[in-house]
């Protein structure tokens, strides 16, 4: 018997044309980042740094941000950046995910850059220039779990004359930052990290450190009024969520490749364990999930890059899908490595921890499904 061809119904939602492939330039950028990470960010050194409680590698960041120019990819050339797009940033994130690299890229080069771009003020421009050059690391002082479409927290108040007071928890990469971008009730402020109190928290994900940021009448430079600030942060959260899908893709791909390699060589019952159909089918399904995650992540990056009208839906779809794939890939990696997967010395746990933390970052899959319900007009009861 033969499968019938698919029925087609008219689309109920506009679908923007999309380029889901990688360009030559993107592949060149990938090669450069991958070579750097292979050389300077192997799993052993990531683990060693994480164990010191200071996972960031400033020298690695310098090379990535300054020499490869990754810090300024999203920043236009007239503001000192590379004038590239979300598509290129997504490729960088795929490679960083593949290496669980402890660098403040997502927070600094994506979220902070997008916030500053969204401010579009003369006050923001100089800081954007420094960020793009790779010499100044900025981190948004918002919880890593803050999601696009969620209400923004009024955690910090101007207690008079620009003296900022308040406390924000679960701020990712704050300990690596030179400048914190603080959303206060009176607008957006650039606050030198030195004038904030940073209390490191013990993170589930050892490669993306979290801290509580406490401001006690701290002063900073005001970059935008409250309405602009909120719009800028909301836009940055959308880009961040869309590009996080690419980090999740890279992470999942590493887990799949590593696991396939393991079951091909690991022998039990006088056969490679990868010759057992039960395992082959699990890995084939996982491969299919990863191939699908690539399409979803590419669609989100392309929609953000082209400013497609359906970008919010495409981002929500990518996040709702890719979070689960990354976690599943990391969980399968641990399971199919058997006892080895449970050890501290095998890097699988770093990937599991990053994957699980990523599934909370910038909105859970459930949150993003709620956004899909809104965009696709499938309302809750």
């Amino acid at each position, binding site marked *: *018997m033969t499968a019938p*061809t698919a029925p087609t119904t008219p689309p109920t939602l506009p679908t923007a044309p999309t380029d889901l*492939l990688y360009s030559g330039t993107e592949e060149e950028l990938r090669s450069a980042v991958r070579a750097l990470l292979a050389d300077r960010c192997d799993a052993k050194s990531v683990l060693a740094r994480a164990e010191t409680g200071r996972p960031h590698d400033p020298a690695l960041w310098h090379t990535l941000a300054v020499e490869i120019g990754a810090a300024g990819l999203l920043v236009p050339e007239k503001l000192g950046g590379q004038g590239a797009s979300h598509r290129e940033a997504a490729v960088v994130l795929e490679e960083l995910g593949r290496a669980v690299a402890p660098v403040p890229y997502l927070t600094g080069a994506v979220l902070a850059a997008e916030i500053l771009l969204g401010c579009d003020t003369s006050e923001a421009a100089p800081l954007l220039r420094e960020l793009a050059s790779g010499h100044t690391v900025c981190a948004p002082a918002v919880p890593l779990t803050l999601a696009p479409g969620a209400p923004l927290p009024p955690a910090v108040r101007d207690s008079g004359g620009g003296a900022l007071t308040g406390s924000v928890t679960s701020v990712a990469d704050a300990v690596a930052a030179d400048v914190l971008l603080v959303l206060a009730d009176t607008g957006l402020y650039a606050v030198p990290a030195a004038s904030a109190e940073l209390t490191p928290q013990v993170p589930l994900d050892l490669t993306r450190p979290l801290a509580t940021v406490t401001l006690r009448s701290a002063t900073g430079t005001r970059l935008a009024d409250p309405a602009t600030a909120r719009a800028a942060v909301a836009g940055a959260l959308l880009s961040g969520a869309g590009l996080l899908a690419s980090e999740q893709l890279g992470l999942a791909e590493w887990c799949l490749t590593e696991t396939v390699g393991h079951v091909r060589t690991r022998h039990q019952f006088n056969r*490679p364990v990868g010759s057992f159909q039960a*395992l082959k089918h699990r890995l084939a399904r996982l491969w299919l999930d990863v191939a699908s995650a690539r399409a979803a992540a590419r669609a989100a990056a392309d929609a953000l890059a082209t400013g497609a009208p359906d970008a919010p839906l495409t981002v929500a779809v990518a996040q709702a899908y890719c979070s689960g794939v990354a976690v599943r890939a990391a969980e399968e990696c641990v399971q199919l490595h058997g006892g080895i997967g449970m050890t501290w010395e095998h890097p699988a746990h770093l990937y599991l921890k990053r994957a699980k933390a990523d599934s909370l970052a910038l909105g859970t899959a459930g949150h993003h*499904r709620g956004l899909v319900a809104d965009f*696709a007009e499938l309302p809750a*009861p």
Partner: protein
Amino acid sequence: MTAAATTAEELRARVRDLLAAHPPRDTARTDFLRARFDAGLAWVHYPEGLGGLGAPRTLQAVVDAELEAAGAPGNDPRRIGIGLGMAAPTILAYGTEEQKNRFLRPLWVGEEVWCQLFSEPGAGSDLAALGTRAVRETGSGDWIVDGQKVWTSSAHTARWAILIARTDPGLPKHRGITYFLCDMHAPGVEVRPLRQITGEAEFNEVFLTGVRIPDSHRLGAVGEGWAVARTTLMNERVSIGGMRIPREGGMIAPVAAVWRERPELRTHALHQRLLELWVEAEVARLTGERLRQQLAAGQPGPEGSGMKLTFARLNQEISGLEVELLAEEGLLYEDWTMRRPELVDFTGRDAGYRYLRAKGNSIEGGTSEILLNIVAERVLGLPPEPRDDKDLAWKDLSR
């Protein structure tokens, strides 16, 4: 002979010439389709003289769009899907010039419907274990075929069949198979409807008793039928997974429509499942789109092997959800009358039909289990399970 048309502009000019010489309004449907075939605008990637122009496959869309806009009749690919998707590429790859000239035109025009005589009661997923015999008659050189085939869609409307049969039982099962083009009107061919869980008989059993096939209807060399069949199977899977659907197209469309139109049916639990499946359907659409972009860019990826798996699973889950969403109506079924449809109407009927018919999606055209093995072994490079049937003669296999 003119140089092959390879640009969209040249193709548009050819379409204009065709329409001018054979105005669709004043031309009988079959005559128009024959003229279109002869103009090389049937499948532009086929060779000249065989309905094509040796043009890039991607340019077919240009021709189709122009002809559709002009109101020209189509060849109803759903009705002749097996011929187009499986018989034609195999005949093109392995046929003699005589076979190509004889069969491709009426196949494409739809004057001759094709079916596929592959599966047998004892050879489904293990297709190469098939036992239908073809014995060569001394003197005439004709082949005499005896055996039984099963799950044969369209056998009741087909004029021709692609057939694989065992010609040497003394060889291991993958060798000793030969590929034939079988006349469905030949004496000894008997087609019996096989009623399905949907109530209708979309496919059939086919009994072959002393069926005579001339050697000129053999496709490929004697004993090389498995290699020929693999071409057919590869094209089968491509044609299943390769379809283009719009956002919220396919199986998710009717359930989303019910959700919007009938708020009284909504529950929180169903909402969560609907959203998960909507997201997965959208991701599947994007994955298919990415695959097409890869093919168009000349970088074919292995994703094609997986698309059928995804669609089978999604169709089953989505149609199952739809029955549940319909509450009391989900208890009812449209019509159990036994019918023998000419084509499978996938969404035209009710949710219960969709739910039951979708069960076939993970079986037809290679079961999901077999496809997972293919992905695991050919894409991921995982080792095959140990096998003890590879070097045994077919006649010595346990059955």
